[in-house]
Each structure stands twice: as structure tokens, then as C-alpha cells.
């Protein structure tokens, strides 16, 4: 498929490119500033407003009042790929969607990360069948994926877990910033 060739070309280009420039320029040249930058990046992941299927609803739910991704600085859903750090592939990627998805990924500025949310994005999920003619079996064939969040669909908590994993990957620590807990939530919907 031509998309897979495109991905191979992309990986080649990326390995030849100057990686420090892509990953943050001068700030990466000193250990201290590099660490500071990594912490900043880990705590400020702006996702793209991009939903594909069922998982998109759970992605929305993760941004809503109950789970509130905003606590991790990830609530700024930007509609334009140019202003995002994080591409959450939430749902089934079809053959028709693949070129558009790759274009979106290419439009994002470095440094950028990808979360494959849901079984469909990871491996084609339930749609990985014998006569499959339209579903891409795993988004990692098209773009590099950093964190996989399985489930069909994953609960919003799992997406938060994925974002924490991504923070771990970026900053080297699971909680790059010292954590503290606010007072317990008032039970607004108690079980009667």
C-alpha cells in the first residue's frame, strides 16, 4: 500500500534530519534545561480535536467534568494540527482515512506524540478479520505510536493512564511534577 511506503520514507527522512532542532533546539543542549523542557512538555500535552469512531466519545468523556484531562494540562483541544503536541488516534483507521491521518501527523510540529487509543487503532481490533478490505490493522503501520491504550473502547481513566505513561516516556518519570491531591470530590451523583 502506498501509505506504508510513505511511512518508510518518513522514517528515513526523520533519521536523516537534525534531531536536536526538531526536539526543541538549544534547550536540549544542556542537561538542566533539557530536563526542565521535558517536564514542561510532559505537563502540557495539547491534543488534536480528532475523533474517528467509538473511542472518540470516550476521549471526549475524558475531557469532560467527570475525569477532566485538564488537570494534566491536556485540556487545550486545538482544532488545528499545527498547534498540537498529541495526536490521539481514537478509533478505526480505514484505508480511505489513512492518507488524511498521515497528513495530519505530518502537519504537526515537532516534538509530537501519538497515542493509539482503542483496539481498532492498535491492531484493527474486532475488525481484523479474514475478508478485511478496508480497515488498517494497526495505526503503527502508518505513523510512529508512542503509547497504546487497549480496550474496546477504553474507559476515560485508561486514556488518562495513557497520558501518564506518555509523561513517563517524555520526562523519564511517571509523575514529572510532584503530585498533590485536593480535597475529595463531593459525591454529586451518590448511589441511592
Amino acid at each position, binding site marked *: 500500500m502506498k501509505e506504508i511506503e510513505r511511512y518508510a520514507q518518513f522514517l528515513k527522512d526523520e533519521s536523516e534530519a537534525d534531531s536536536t532542532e526538531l526536539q526543541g533546539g538549544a534547550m536540549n543542549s544542556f542537561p538542566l534545561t533539557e530536563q526542565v523542557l521535558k517536564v514542561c512538555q510532559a505537563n502540557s500535552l495539547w491534543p*488534536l*480535536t*480528532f*475523533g*474517528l*469512531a*467509538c473511542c*472518540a*466519545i*470516550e476521549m*471526549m*468523556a475524558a475531557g*469532560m*467534568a*467527570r475525569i477532566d484531562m485538564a488537570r494534566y494540562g491536556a485540556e487545550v483541544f486545538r*482544532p488545528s*494540527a499545527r498547534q498540537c503536541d498529541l495526536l490521539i488516534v481514537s*478509533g*478505526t483507521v*480505514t484505508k*480511505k*482515512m489513512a492518507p*488524511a491521518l498521515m497528513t*495530519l501527523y505530518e502537519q504537526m510540529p515537532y516534538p509530537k506524540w501519538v497515542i493509539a487509543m482503542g483496539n481498532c487503532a492498535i491492531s484493527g481490533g*474486532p*475488525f481484523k*478479520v*479474514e*475478508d*478485511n*478490505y*478496508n*480497515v488498517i490493522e494497526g495505526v503503527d503501520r502508518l505513523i510512529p505510536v508512542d503509547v497504546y491504550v487497549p480496550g*474496546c*473502547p477504553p*474507559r476515560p481513566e485508561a486514556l488518562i493512564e495513557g497520558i501518564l505513561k506518555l509523561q513517563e516516556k517524555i520526562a523519564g518519570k511517571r509523575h514529572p511534577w510532584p503530585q498533590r491531591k485536593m480535597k475529595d470530590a463531593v459525591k*454529586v*451523583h451518590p*448511589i*441511592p
Partner: protein
Amino acid sequence: MVTKLEKIAGPKHRFLLNMGPQHPSTHGVLRIVLEMDGEYAMAIDPVLGYGHRMHEKMAEGRPYNGFYPNTGRMDYLGAILFSHGYVGLLERMSGAEVPERAEFIRVITAELNRISSHLVGIGAYVLDLGAFTPILYAFDDREMILDMLEAITGSRLTYCYFRVGGVTKDIDDTFIRRARAFIDRMRSRLPMYKDLVTDNLIFLKRTKGIGIIDRDMAARYGITGPVLRGSGISYDVRKSEPYSVYDRFDFDIPVGENGDSFDRYVVRMEEIAQSLRIIEQALDALPDGPVMVKPKKKLKLAAGGCNYTVEAARGSLSYYLVGDGSDTPYRLKIRVPSYSNLSPLPELCKGMLLSDLVTAMGSLDLVIPEIDR
């Protein structure tokens, strides 16, 4: 029809605008190619297929009960309603018995699911119009439903709860208490939505008179569901061809007056209230008994075509199945409501402002993977 503008402007004046497949207002992966004249959309060409997941093909390759998970993944907002149609179809073809309690549970969960779907639809619609906050309130209310449904089905979104001959798990007293609490809460929340959204001057101005669908158009395109009822036609499969135990409940079909975007929104709002009524009656009349009749080891259906139509959250949903005597369907056609509801878009929005196009499209309450199947 050649407008005066087309005569004087000529082709060079127009330009193409590509909306989607990633665009905040196309609700997923719909792509719309617009031919614009300034801010006016003169020709609209929706491009489907970005979420085509071969459900109909998959049905032909797996046993009848292997298709349960797929039903929940077409319209993921109204998964139970889609399952309802599929198990109804299989029960009609196989003549399987369903315990009464199971039917009541099906109605309760289906209506809860309808409410949650409408809440998302309304929230997303208002989000399209630029108000961010109502969708969070809607999701907050929806979480209550999801908690309830999760407690009995184990899943938040893509329930796989209905089986031929009943449901997988019985509801308990906690569920009933929660459902009653939810009915009270939702009824107290509806005035809040009215204050925040329905009465809002900007909302009224944005939606009134936009995207009017009349009876003729509805017939030509096969529009159903709240979109149709917004035009004043009281067609509801639950009333016209009652399935399950819907004929035992007393509820109204809310209809709109003008068939514009505002009426469609109001119909959805009122359908929430009607669904609450149905749930309340069903909870009151809930009979005792088993919830599942043990099915035969392997479901084999006789040859022949069969149709089953239910009212999903977005309109009438038909499953048409052709059996061949084996344990797999020979052909399963799924008629999804959004498909027909979206198809009038080019006619509906011709010559509209881009903002109005977003309004009109949002009021159709689309779920794209349902359309693409």
C-alpha cells in the same frame, strides 16, 4: 437551477473548500467538499466512507451471535438500540420466546440509552454553535446513565447486553433506585437546559428558520427520527409498528412546527422527557421472572428474507436479513437512520452561509461510523 449570481459570476468566482475529514464540526470523519461563493456554500458534496468498517461483510462471515458486538459499534451512542433491532430480528426469524421481564429491561435500558444519545447530540450541537459549556453539563448527566448501564452491562459505551431470548444480566434493586433517582434529577435539569440554551437569544437567532425540511423532502430522502418529527410528522416506529412492549406504555410523540434546526433540537429535548415517562412506567410495571430463556446451542435460521425495524436514537433502523438455513447470515442489510438523514444535505444547504451549514448539519445529529457502517 441557475441563479442570477451564477449567471453573472461565472465559474472563476467560486472556489472549493474542503471540510474534513478532520474538522471540529463534522462529528468525526465526514468530509464535505463545498463550492463556496464568498461565505455562501453553493454546492455541497459530502464524501463518505472514512469510517467504513465493513459491518455487512463481517456479518456474512460469522455466526448469528457473533454479530452482537458489531451492532454496538455502528451507532456507538445508541448501541443498545441497535442491538435491540438485531436481537428482535433474530427472534422474529427463529420464533424465540422472550421473557416479559427481559422485554421490560430492554425497554428501560434502550430508553436510557436514547436519553444518553440525545444528551450527546444536544451537547455536540450546541458546541457546533460555539457554546462550550452545555456539552459538559450534558455529559455530566450522561455519566449517571453510563454508571447505571455499566453496573448491569459492564461496559460504558458499546454494550453487548441483549441476546436472543433475553438479556445477559438481571437488573437489581440498586439499578431501579438509581434509575428513579436519575428520572428525578433529569427532570430537574431540563429547565436548566431551557434557561441556558433553548431560551437563549443567540441560540434562537442561530437556529430558527435554518435548514427547513418539509414533508415532501422527508419522503424523497427517507428522513426519519427526531429530524422528521421536527417537521411536524408524528412518525415513530415505536407507535406505528410497535415492537417489544412499547405498545403498553403511554407516551407522546413530540413534533415541531416549522421543521427547522430549532424544532429538531426541541424535539430531542422533549423526547428526553418522554423517554423518562416510559422508563418510569416500565419501572412501575416491571414483572418478575427470568430474564433469559436458554437458547439453542447453535442458532440456525430458515431460508428467507426478514425485516425488522426499530426506532433508534436518530430514526428508524431496519435490519434486513436473508438466511440460507445455515448458522451464518447470507446477507444482512442495515438501514441506518443517519444515512438517510444526511443525504438531503446538498439540497438542504444550497446557498447557505457556512455558519448555517454547520448549524443545519449539527441539527441532524450525525454519527458518521453509523453512516459508513
